[in-house]
């Protein structure tokens, strides 16, 4: 397979316009502007490209949801990459920022938007500086601004830096944050395609999704769709981390066995250790175990296996780590990041942390495990956004798959803990 997004990505100076253009950069934009917006949209639809941010929604369909006509419409690139384990967009923005900008301009042409933003997480200081420099070059070259390359299409683009909040990766939380408010998610419907930024129709796409667009225009949608599987087309950047020997970003063709990514590319766990569990798509994904290593890495196969591809971030945990430690890290993260707007999430994440702490200090009984599992069930589907679900799914899966270990840990700690004063022996 030839790399599409990572093609010679470490070439010195690729972040500059000169080097990017010298290898054919912005030729896809020129070609797209020769086509009609509908023609570009058809290519995107034919490519079968599914959103790379987490939900995996068909990108072409998302573009087509925007109403037609001369409304104030917006395009927002979600570069708030905060899902634990995910760092692919960072590598793209740092090393090939023009690929993102070119894809974004093409998408804005297809969607008929003249105003766009890249919302980048505030922690990515160096990457935002690189993006700003690339944007200045693109502006000077006439790729961004009024009447791009002499066409009728105009586009403004602002790189907007966040200030540290996981929830701003949720699309409606992101929109509120971009409007200068706390990043609280909104009630849906209305969906952003109808009423998003400043109440206008808004298209929101992940960095990797937009960065794939120039390749689709270059190859044609139909050619792109030949890569990967029928329902998960193309290549995917996978961030792999945790207990593997070569953590990092790898570009894979969707549908290869997960084992190939974890063992052949990333080198598997350290010598003498085995895979205990792994998150296939960021810490919000239900965990899978060593038995699932041969599941093909694509949207539908992972869903069928009871988890999800999510943001494409594999976190491997080996047999040296207690499952309780993993659960605690996950629960504490979501408890910290809950915006507090919906009760099931605000309370559920907090109580899950406390129940896990009870297990760890020997104060829990097996009934607590049932209560903890039921708390997870009561969060899912009961909030404005999926942050609570994103804790409930992995925690629920850990309780289901590692119940014996939780119970053994509980019993072990209970025997070690001092008896409460006044307790009846």
């Amino acid at each position, binding site marked *: 397979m030839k790399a599409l997004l990572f093609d010679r990505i470490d070439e010195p100076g690729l972040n500059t316009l000169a080097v990017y253009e010298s290898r054919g950069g912005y030729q896809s934009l020129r070609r797209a502007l020769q086509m009609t917006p509908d023609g570009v949209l058809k290519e995107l639809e034919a490519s079968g490209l599914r959103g790379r941010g987490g939900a995996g929604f068909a990108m072409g369909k998302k573009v087509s949801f925007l109403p037609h006509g001369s409304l104030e419409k917006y395009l927002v690139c979600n570069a708030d990459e905060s899902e634990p384990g995910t760092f692919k967009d960072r590598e793209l923005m740092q090393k090939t920022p023009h690929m993102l900008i070119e894809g974004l301009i093409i998408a804005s042409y297809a969607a008929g938007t003249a105003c766009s933003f890249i919302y980048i997480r505030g922690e990515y200081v160096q990457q935002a500086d690189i993006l700003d420099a690339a944007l200045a070059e693109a502006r000077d070259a006439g790729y961004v601004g009024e009447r791009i390359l002499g066409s009728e299409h105009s586009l403004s683009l602002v790189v907007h830096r966040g200030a540290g909040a996981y929830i701003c990766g949720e699309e409606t939380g992101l929109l509120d944050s971009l409007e200068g408010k706390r990043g609280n998610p909104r009630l849906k419907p209305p969906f952003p395609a109808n009423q998003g930024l400043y109440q206008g129709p808004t298209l929101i796409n992940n960095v990797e999704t937009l960065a794939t667009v120039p390749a689709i225009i270059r190859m044609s949608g139909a050619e792109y769709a030949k890569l990967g599987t029928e329902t998960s087309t193309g290549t995917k950047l996978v961030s792999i981390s945790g207990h593997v020997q070569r953590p990092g970003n790898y570009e894979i063709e969707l549908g290869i066995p997960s084992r190939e990514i974890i063992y052949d590319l990333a080198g598997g766990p350290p010598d003498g250790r085995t895979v205990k569990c792994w998150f296939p798509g960021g810490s919000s994904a239900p965990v899978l175990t060593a038995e699932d290593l041969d599941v093909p890495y694509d949207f539908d196969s992972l869903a069928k296996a009871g988890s999800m591809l999510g943001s494409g971030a594999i976190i491997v*945990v080996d047999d040296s780590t207690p499952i309780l430690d993993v659960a605690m890290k996950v629960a504490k993260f979501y408890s910290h990041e809950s915006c507090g707007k919906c009760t099931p999430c605000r309370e559920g994440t907090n109580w899950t942390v406390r129940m896990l702490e009870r297990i760890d200090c020997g104060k829990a009984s097996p009934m607590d495990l049932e209560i903890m599992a039921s708390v997870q069930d009561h969060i899912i589907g009961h909030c404005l956004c999926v942050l609570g679900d994103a804790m409930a799914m992995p925690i629920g899966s850990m309780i289901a798959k590692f119940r014996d270990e939780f119970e053994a840990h509980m019993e072990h700690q209970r025997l070690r803990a001092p008896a409460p004063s006044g307790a009846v022996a």
Partner: protein
Amino acid sequence: MSAAASPRGWDLPADLDKDPARIPDPATTAVPQGLRSEIESQMASYPDARSAALPALEAAQRVHGWCSPEAIAQVACVMGVTPASLDAVATFYDMLETEPVGEHSVYVCTNISCSLRGADELHAAIRAAADGDPAFNVRAFECLGACDIAPMASIDGVYVGPLTIADVPQLLDDVRAGRDVLPDKQLIRRSCADPEASA
């Protein structure tokens, strides 16, 4: 500053007898010229000027060291909004400081991928080594998006890793001396892990 002296936070009682703070009067609110022009140019780059709240607060924090009541009042004055609306924003985001902090931020990622590789021990070691030095703001941080160099930290926005406890003295010395921090361990200089990428 103690929590009692700081007029913010969910756990503090509100003074209901006090009039709500209004938009600060430009005639009586002094705003440093550099900060004012930075906020104004941010406001001009959005269709709705209120979108500039985050970059404006970030700029004020750079000038004042934290989002102090004075910093908030200055931003509120230039943006023409109430201090309370900006307080609400500042308290939401991890990178906006609502208490005075050391000049140099050291964010140590302690999320799952980093903690599997020793981040909690690293965080404890950095805290201990920087203890008592008011120049540092050492914080455990949620996933910083650099699990490929776990365990890692962000030093004033510069990502370094993988770190060992043995790196800690050098790291702090580099910051104190104003040098480039651990140049060999900076993420920005790292090649992509994918062998196909450089093929």
